[in-house]
């Protein structure tokens, strides 16, 4: 829709090109402050970090060139592999589960609540789910570490009150459970984002598709599977990409909830590189960890962008 308007406007705009030309400031000049600050704050530090990853350096004195030694060491480092394995768990908690649950919640809110109880009710419920997203992660961490505290935390108190005292756990202190507790908190934090995006996406689906399917006798689940899912595929790929990247970057939650512990049970790459930089002051090694993380994230974003454009192309093909 907007595309046709834009094309028309551009065609009109091209015509009056005959008058005398005044000297104009080039548009490229407007890009100058943005590009310069970008070089200083992002590009140069990034290149420095990559460079340092090939050296041995403690942060003082001059770095000593060591070639690929840091990367070779990483390959044999159990802590490094464990941190990336935990990242996969974070991807499940922050991308897979929120996307699936968010889809069902969004469809239910849109179909049942929005249509039969008014959009106001749907908006209030949506707001409840979205609330944790605006909370600073440090604060969410404080709230949850207190709820999950072993001695007088609210969760254990609740379990005891309803007669499930034997289910009480040291949620963040038990190496076998801590990772799952952190995952649970991350689901809570993350769920609002896919929900809001999917609800917005559902609004542009043609209601006639649903009416036709309903006339053909398709139930809710079939309509969800055959109409809703294909129609909001662009949103799904965007959400999956963004959430996966966010999951790989998780830092604040781990810092506040567990500090990577107990015994490294919840260590993730960003926290691992942070402690390597600032506590062990092995700057070269820390840089190598963060470089590996960066490469993985950049590859994922390229795949995500491809998926997104392909989904949009497919959608346009359907509409044409």
């Amino acid at each position, binding site marked *: 829709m907007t595309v046709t308007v834009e094309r028309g406007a551009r065609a009109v705009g091209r015509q009056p090109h005959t008058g005398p030309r005044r000297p104009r400031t080039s548009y490229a000049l407007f*890009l100058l402050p943005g590009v310069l600050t970008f070089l200083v704050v*992002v590009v140069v530090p990034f290149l420095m970090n990559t460079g340092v990853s090939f050296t041995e350096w403690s942060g003082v004195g001059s770095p000593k060139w060591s070639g690929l030694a840091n990367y070779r060491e990483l390959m044999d480092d159990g802590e490094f592999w464990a941190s990336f394995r935990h990242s996969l768990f974070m991807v499940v908690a922050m991308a897979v589960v929120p996307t699936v649950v968010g889809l069902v919640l969004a469809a239910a809110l849109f179909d049942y609540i929005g249509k039969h109880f008014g959009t106001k009710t749907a908006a209030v419920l949506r707001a409840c789910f979205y609330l944790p997203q605006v*909370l600073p992660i440090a604060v969410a961490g404080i709230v949850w570490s207190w709820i999950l505290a072993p001695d007088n935390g609210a969760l254990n108190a609740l379990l005891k009150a309803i007669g499930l005292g034997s289910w009480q756990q040291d949620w963040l202190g038990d190496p076998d459970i801590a990772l799952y507790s952190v995952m649970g908190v991350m689901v809570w934090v993350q769920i609002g984002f896919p929900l809001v995006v999917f609800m917005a996406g559902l609004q542009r689906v043609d209601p006639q598709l649903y009416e036709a399917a309903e006339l053909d006798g398709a139930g809710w689940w079939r309509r969800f599977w055959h109409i809703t899912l294909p129609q909001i595929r662009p949103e799904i790929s965007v959400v999956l990409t963004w959430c996966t990247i966010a999951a790989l970057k998780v830092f604040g939650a781990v810092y506040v909830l567990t500090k990577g512990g107990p015994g490294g049970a919840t260590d993730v790459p960003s926290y691992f590189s942070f402690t390597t930089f600032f506590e062990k002051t092995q700057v070269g090694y820390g840089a190598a960890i963060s470089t590996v993380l960066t490469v993985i994230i950049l590859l994922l974003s390229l795949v995500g962008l491809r998926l997104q454009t392909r989904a949009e192309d497919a959608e346009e093909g359907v509409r044409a």
Partner: protein
Amino acid sequence: MTTALRRYPVLVALCLAALFMVLPFLIVAVNAFKSPAEYSQHGPLSLPGGFYVDGLKDFWQRVDYSQKLLNSVLISGCVAVLAAVLSILNAYAIGIGRIKGRTWVLAFFVLANVLPQEALVYPLYYLSKQVGLYDTRLSVIIVFTVIQSAFGTYLLSSVLGQFPREIIEAARIDGANRWQVLWRIVVPVSRPTIGVLLVFFFIWTWNEFLLPLVMLISNDNQTVSVALGVLQGQRLMDATMTNAAALLGVLPALVFFLVFQRTLTRGIAVGAVK
């Protein structure tokens, strides 16, 4: 109809799920007003017997919370405005100026957007020490202005790419130069999108953790997020203090949420599909 029968169970299920989402906030609110004695006697689930605010006052003074709030407002406010200005300038050149190589420039900004801060944090720490900006609020303002403007450039460029060209041509014929066209026409017309950006930049910067944690070490410069995160990390707080910290951390976020709810939900949808 079968759907009519199923409507209410779905409503109830969704309400229960929503309740679960806000339950942690409720529990924090209830417990922040209990005295330590009351807490240790009745545990976290009882309703407070009185209205005990000494814990909150105590915490406020101990961490000098006014200063932390001021720092957060100052840093987030400056970043929001400066990053919006930078995004507008970039997007003007890319979206309306259609400069050569704009696809590459844009791709560059998009990739920068996903770059993990871990890959920048040590050099930024090192460089800021070299130029004497370490442990200053200015350093955090500069860094986040640039980082946030990457997203702003990406979003605004696609919005400005669809800007009606007739308006610009008309202004041009009336003798306006490019600078005037930008501030008198493009910016006022794009106000809704710029508003969304301002809100997002403010809240994102408010919530940032890693870089402020590294850059701001002295008490006088720390933001709310960093101060609370560090306190929690030290494991020195008792239950009442933790609750005070949680409540005081939740409140500003709650205020932003209530004030900006519509902008936020609309903005996310725009940002995701663009």
